[in-house]
């Protein structure tokens, strides 16, 4: 009798080990990237942002500044989707499509409902299937005629991340601190630390930049002395 139990538990353990093994082998990349200087990496990222290619994939973001619930949804795999823009700030995950120059689309799936955000030149729309409402957020007046360029960059998060990175590099130290696999892509990790003279609670900002396409894949903001990111946003898979 006891042998039967042992063998069936061994089968179960083998299956679990197999699944974990497959997941682990998928997570780790193959080769290491050639070393690169921070400036060269930033320049390549800037070039990549200037001649943009459409990007889509699964994204996830967390916000440690707003306390959230520990429960992610009882009796069901997923929690509910946010029903307004403010709900997005709590953190979440979804699918993102970016077509540089024309717009973005974000689809956040929850249990039984979706929250969709569409941004383009004509403004930002959200649709919540939980409440059955669509909301249009008009862009500030004048953006259409006098200053079309900021609109385009505000709509394109990838270009915005690249631009912000270049601004920040002036007041802190920038270093390439190795490789990391983000969203299944071998990526450079660019770590930006504030200069020693500046009093701040900010520990560091880490940006993972795809080693092949130089597209920023993940941004993490760390508080001083903290090992888990306070804010993070990035792709979990790129397609």
């Amino acid at each position, binding site marked *: 009798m006891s042998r*039967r*139990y042992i*063998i*069936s538990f061994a*089968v*179960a353990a083998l*299956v*679990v080990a*197999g*699944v*974990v093994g497959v*997941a682990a082998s998928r997570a780790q990349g193959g080769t290491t990237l050639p070393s690169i200087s921070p400036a060269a990496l930033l320049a390549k990222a800037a070039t990549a942002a200037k001649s943009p290619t459409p990007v889509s994939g*699964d994204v996830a973001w967390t916000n440690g500044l707003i306390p959230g619930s*520990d*429960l*992610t*949804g*009882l*009796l*069901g*795999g*997923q929690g*509910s989707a946010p029903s307004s823009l403010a709900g997005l700030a709590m953190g979440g995950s979804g*699918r993102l499509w970016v077509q540089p120059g024309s717009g973005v689309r974000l*689809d956040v*799936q*929850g*249990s*039984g*409902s*979706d929250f*969709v955000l569409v941004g383009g030149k004509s403004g930002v729309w959200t*649709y919540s*299937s*939980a*409440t*059955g409402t*669509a909301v249009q957020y008009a862009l500030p007046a004048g953006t259409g005629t006098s200053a079309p360029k900021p609109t385009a960059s505000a709509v394109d998060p990838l270009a915005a991340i690249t631009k912000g990175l270049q601004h920040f590099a002036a007041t802190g130290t920038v270093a390439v601190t190795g490789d990391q696999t983000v969203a299944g892509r071998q990526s450079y990790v660019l770590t930006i630390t504030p200069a020693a003279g500046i009093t701040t609670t900010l520990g560091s900002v880490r940006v993972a930049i795809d080693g092949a396409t130089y597209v920023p894949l993940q941004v993490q903001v760390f508080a001083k002395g903290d090992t888990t990111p306070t804010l993070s946003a990035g792709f979990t*898979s790129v397609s």
Partner: protein
Amino acid sequence: MMLLSRELTKLFAQKRSYVGWAGLLLVPMLMTLALYLNRNNTHDHGPGGIISQAMHNGLLIPVAAITLLSAFLLPLLASMIGSYQLAGEAETGTIKTWLMHSISRGGVLASKWGVAVIYVAIGLVLVAVGGLVAGALAFGLHAPVLLSGQTVSIGAGLWLSLLSYLYVLVGVICVLSLALLFATFTNSSLTAAIAALVVVIVMNILGAFSYFNFLKPYLFTSHLDAWQGLLSQPIDWHPITTGLITFAIYIVALMGAAWYVFRRKDILV
């Protein structure tokens, strides 16, 4: 095949089969009735999501019904039917007589599994057809609005509903296989059914807390909702394929273990 047809005869001859089916049929009916009677109440928008949208479109009633059922009633029925197949025979003392004939134990186990799958599939067909008929009578059939906001044709809506049901069926087969495995250990069908349900509920609770997020990909319960990706445009295939692979691994492992135990089990009663 002969074993399976015999099992089907037994299934249709038992009263308890019809109780489960009646319960499954009742859910979409009650839901439609509640939504229909509440249709003029403009202050109450219902529970939101698919169920609220079903208030305007009978086509969505089957999908709305499955969101309610997949959390508890379907796993319950699956573990009941899965455990009763083997342990029930032991309780009534018929399994000993049966296994004395020159039939393979693997074949017995496969036919038991097959008949349990057929039972759950018939239950799901009842939910879908019942919900569709009730929904059509109450609200009519219209081109459905997907969760992501797009409108698709009635045919596409029915096709997506069918795919959703097939996905849920595979998920429920996991619970059923779990119950069948437990039924090979014990001679009490209630014990096996409760054990399977306990495992499902523990998995649900582990999946509900963010601390155990690292476990989530390996629990089949956290994949049970992934069919909702079918209702977004473009379809979110990634969680669906992950879910199906997870279900397949569970089903093969559970049935493999059940076969190993049952093949050499001493039948004493």
